[in-house]
């Protein structure tokens, strides 16, 4: 049994390495900038969803307000860069730390809420964050911040001629988020989170400090999402509140995980690989005002998935496997 378990962990790691290697080779074949763009976004959302999954999937605290941490990552990086000349790499880490601290600060009152009330609180807080930034003059208010781009530079993490550096960064971020999840899955924290999700009272009786477990999950989750936000800001070279903190980001972090399999290691990656290209394609086929249409598309998908495969698409794989395993 233990051997099976260790083998499964190793197999996951190998599959991930192979997929990452294949993804790294993709630019050799994909020269089209538009398609590259879709790949970058797919990798980014896979990373974001993977991070969201830590708090909402593993620990069971469903957040629909993660756009807040995404925006905080973006704003911290760009404010530090444009106002104080701090390199984005440091801004990125700073944004991650600030987001993690805010997540814990918010967790302090909100982790006492249960179920739907917690979800509602996360939505409200993210909307408040959005409003604050829309009115914060020093941070550019609704006008946003334009990042001065002066040629290609790894130091300043900005590139004009090619999107490939962004692609590789998104790939690394995706691998990082996946690896963190993989590592946490077989750790004390991973077990505590799943226990908290399934039954907090029983968890408490087994020595799990439920509140601290949630705080830990929130911090890890917010930190990684903020790194994603910092990346996105650099990628766009322009941010305003709506374009980095809008509600759609909260949705786009949750949906791939839900589609692929919430609280699973592969769910977010699988979900993002399907959902994001589809969203982008429908948007471009249907035209500029397609924002509503892509929402309809993934709304429909989610309904179908929750009716037919409540455990998400990964359950297709595990189902086949468990059939094979039962001799």
């Amino acid at each position, binding site marked *: *049994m*233990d051997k*099976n*378990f260790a083998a499964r962990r190793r197999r996951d790691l190998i599959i991930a390495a192979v997929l990452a290697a294949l993804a790294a080779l993709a630019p050799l074949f994909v020269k089209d900038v538009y398609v590259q763009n879709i790949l970058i976004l797919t990798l980014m959302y896979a990373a974001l969803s993977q991070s969201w999954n830590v708090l909402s999937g593993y620990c069971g605290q469903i957040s629909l307000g993660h756009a807040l941490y995404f925006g905080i990552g973006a704003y911290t990086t760009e404010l530090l860069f444009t106002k104080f000349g701090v390199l984005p790499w440091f801004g990125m880490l700073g944004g991650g730390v600030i987001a993690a601290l805010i997540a814990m600060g918010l967790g302090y009152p909100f982790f006492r809420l249960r179920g739907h009330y917690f979800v509602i609180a996360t939505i409200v807080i993210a909307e408040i964050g959005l409003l604050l930034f829309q009115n914060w003059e020093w941070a550019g208010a609704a006008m946003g911040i334009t990042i001065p781009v002066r040629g290609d530079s790894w130091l300043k993490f900005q590139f004009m001629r090619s999107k490939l550096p962004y692609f590789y960064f998104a790939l690394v971020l995706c691998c990082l988020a996946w690896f963190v999840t993989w590592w946490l899955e*077989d*750790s*004390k924290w991973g*077990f*505590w989170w*799943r*226990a908290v*999700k*399934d*039954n907090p*009272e*029983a*968890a*408490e*009786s*087994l*020595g*799990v*400090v*439920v509140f601290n477990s949630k705080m830990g999950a929130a911090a890890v989750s917010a930190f990684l999402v903020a790194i994603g936000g910092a990346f996105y800001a650099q990628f766009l070279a322009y941010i305003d509140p709506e374009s980095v903190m809008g509600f759609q980001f909260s949705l786009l972090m949750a949906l791939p995980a839900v589609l692929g399999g919430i*609280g699973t290691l592969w769910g977010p990656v699988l979900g993002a690989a399907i959902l994001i290209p589809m969203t982008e394609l429908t948007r471009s086929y249907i035209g500029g005002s397609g924002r509503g249409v892509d929402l309809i598309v993934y709304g429909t998908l989610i309904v179908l998935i929750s009716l037919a495969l409540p455990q998400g698409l990964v359950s297709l794989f595990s189902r086949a496997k468990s059939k094979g395993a039962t001799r």
Partner: protein
Amino acid sequence: MTALLETRGVWQRFGGLVANSDVSISVGRGEIVGLIGPNGAGKSTLFNLIAGVLPPTQGSIWFDGEDVTKMPAAERCQRGVGRTFQVVKSFETMTVIDNVIVGALVRNTVMREARRKAHEVLEFTGLAARADVLASDLVPAEKRRLEVARALATEPKLLLLDEVLTGLTPTEAQTGVALVRKVRDAGITVLMVEHVMEIVMPLVDRAIVLDLGKVLVEGKPTEVVRDPKVISAYLGDRHAVGA
């Protein structure tokens, strides 16, 4: 040597309802003590007070020579109080072994050791064959057993069993009784709440009978069952006359 567990003048009020009034009990090391009484006697409340689900309105609780009255449940578990739940609370989306690992992590921070400990406990409780099954797929008797296994994995000094033998078939109950004996023989003190008298009485060293939130009688099981006060509490005054 002091008792492992002691409650001193414990009161618990819920609004106007007094669930426990001035309850002082003690449990010695290595004992199996049965906490019995009719429905509504305050057994479960006392049990939850000891496990640390809520602090008592008044009075104090001592465990292993330490005042734990205000200590939350998780910390009491770390000190050596393990418990099961009357209504089973398995981690349904996790496998049996993973359920037990959660408990084992209290004393084993290295995953490999926690896993080994969990396998040991599954072996001990007779669940080894079910290790990789989802907890939600277990039959009720197995879920009860899993509750015990999880609590044992925390390596408790005191194991609190909340009606683990209730609602089982006679055969299942017998296996349960054997398991409780085995737990005690492993050096763990047991305090068990039950209201099925005929199962508990042969098993326990001492019985404490609660009625209307108070300790009614306490003593050897053979004496307790013959006590007129106990008979009247369970069956009404009329039946106590002949005893």
